């Protein structure tokens, strides 16, 4: 997935970019509306993340301009204005969704996925490894002829593993990636989801191996 982030706070932007890249997305960063227009005119993006208050104007102007120019790329607004009327006016202006700062990355990720799923149909999001096809947007895993719908946590876990086959992920890293911080979860929760994914992948060329004391790895025969 290719994202455009429009955010004037450099630190926050770097943090968001780092997380998005970790999930295997390509992300461009624009700090001003002018840059954002240049970026969006020159490239195709799957999703735009837009801050409302920018140094050279209001993010809502970009939103208006984008929709007036028949831009179809979904936009999620990152807003620090939390009043309900603000949120509703954003949706009326054509935003697909919004998150209120400070936001949980897991929530941003979930909202991106929901928006992409709503707008799906054009983008080809299926990744194939061996005889396994995985569509992270639709949340569908296909092994041979059989397809299963994955629940969110299974989906996120498989996505993390799929993006870096052969890499070992410690349990605690997986917990950080999968759960938000208001979830009180033990690392054992990961074992439940690993168990389910193994069941889904049974009979395929992929399997998840346990490396005692280190973590889990996705292996390809």
């Amino acid at each position, binding site marked *: 997935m290719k994202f455009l982030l429009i955010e004037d*706070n450099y*630190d*926050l932007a770097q*943090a*968001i970019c*780092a*997380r998005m890249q*970790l999930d295997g997305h390509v992300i461009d960063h624009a700090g001003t509306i002018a840059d954002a227009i240049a970026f969006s005119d020159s490239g195709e993006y799957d999703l735009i993340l837009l801050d*409302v*208050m920018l140094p050279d104007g209001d993010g809502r102007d970009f939103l208006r301009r984008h929709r007036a120019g028949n831009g179809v790329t979904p936009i999620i607004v*990152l807003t*620090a*204005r*939390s*009043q*309900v*009327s*603000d949120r*509703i006016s954003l949706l009326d202006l054509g935003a697909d*969704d919004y998150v*209120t*700062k*400070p*936001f*949980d*990355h*897991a*929530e941003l990720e*979930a*909202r991106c*996925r*929901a928006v992409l799923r709503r707008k799906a149909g054009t983008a080809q999001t299926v990744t194939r490894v061996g005889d396994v096809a995985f569509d992270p947007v639709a949340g569908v895993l296909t092994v041979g002829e059989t397809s299963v719908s994955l*629940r*969110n*946590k299974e989906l996120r876990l498989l996505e993390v593993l799929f993006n870096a086959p052969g890499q070992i992920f410690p349990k*605690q*890293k997986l917990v*950080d990636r999968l759960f*938000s*911080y*208001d*979830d*009180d979860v033990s690392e054992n929760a990961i074992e439940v989801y690993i168990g389910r994914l193994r069941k889904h992948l049974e009979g395929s060329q992929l399997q998840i191996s346990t490396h005692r004391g280190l973590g889990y790895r996705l292996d390809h025969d």
Partner: protein
Amino acid sequence: MTEEVRVSGSLRNRLATTLIGGAAVLAILLFFVVRSYAAQIAQQGQDSILGASVTSILDAASVQDGRIEVDFPYASFSMLGTDSDDRIFYAIYQDDQLLSGYDGLPAVDPSIGGDSGYWTAEFQDTPIRLAAASRMLVGADLRTQLTVSVAQTQDSLSGTLNRISRNVAIFGTGFFLLVVLLASWATSAAIGPLARLTTSVARRGPQDLRPVVSPVPSEMVPLVTSLNSLMARLDQSLGRSEDFIAEAAHRVRTPLATVRSHAEATLQRVDREENRQAMRAMIRAIDESSRAAGQLLDHAMITFRADHLDRQDLDLLDLVQDLAVRLGPIADMRDVDLHVDAPDAVPITGDAILLQNAIRNIVDNALKYAPRESVVHIDVTTSPSPRVTVRDEGPGFPIGEIGGLSDRFARGSNSDGIIGSGLGLTIAQDVATAHGGALTLGNHPKGGACVIFSF
């Protein structure tokens, strides 16, 4: 917020009383003037006939052989005939000596004296009208004064007068009623622009502070001008405080967001358990504070709007479904399914922004306490009253604490480890109350908390 307005009388009543009171006085005056004028005219009619009768009798008098002879024609009395068979009296005096007629019928007006004229007197206990005149008869050896008086009872006259009075009374009453109608029309017409201005101002939503532009009568221009300038100032100061809140929120939240993102990124790199615990605690504290800030702002906004509900016709089902879409990703994160169950449409009137916020808080709560991979049921029903029932499969409300959970900043004893501000249910409760409804907390027989928002 709304202070009782002190009332001193009513313009409408004052205007109506003046107009109707004036009309009543005029009607009564009219009645008496017309009645007395009519009486005068009728009296003149009777008097001239009486006079003619007297004259015809006097004319018939002559002196024959030193005696007075009065051979008056039949017409002298028949001319006095009336519908009511009024009685006629006459008396003919020769130098105070009754020649013929009724004894005792006065021949002179006692109040004036003299020997001619018209007056009213009483004869045989009946009011009569009298006409009298005299003539000097001169014969060969006679010189004598002949006085004739003719009287008539006034039955016919008073009958006529009564008829006229009745007609005048009917006419006066009609006139009065007409004026009452006119007065109420005139009052409405005069008060109308004021009422229209009131409605147009009262009907406005809480955010609508545009100046009044519809034309008003010149007397109301100063009022409307000051109203407009008041609204302009209010708009400006509201706008300024809204901008300030938005700006303040932005200034506080943006760095919080940066700190949070850094903390998250750091957490990815830190391996020692105690450091990880510290980072997690930090992230939770940030979430807690930003959530509390957001809820406080929402609560302030709701307190403000609850006084000026912006009521619209809504479909409760639409609202809930829209909310389910918005909260879908949050439910997804916890692998919780949101089940919306409802009939076709549930029409209600209410403030969309407030209702959305209230129901969002209830569903948010359910999502927070729902166990992983469970279902949160949102049922929208129309009977007995429109209501939204939100039920989760979590631990339920702690028994004994249910009563106090919708108080400000109250949180259940089982809320450890769950981020919240203790304002969510307060907001929902306030919104329900503002809509004349209620928020009912309880536990479902099959387990789990059950919150009913009813209208």
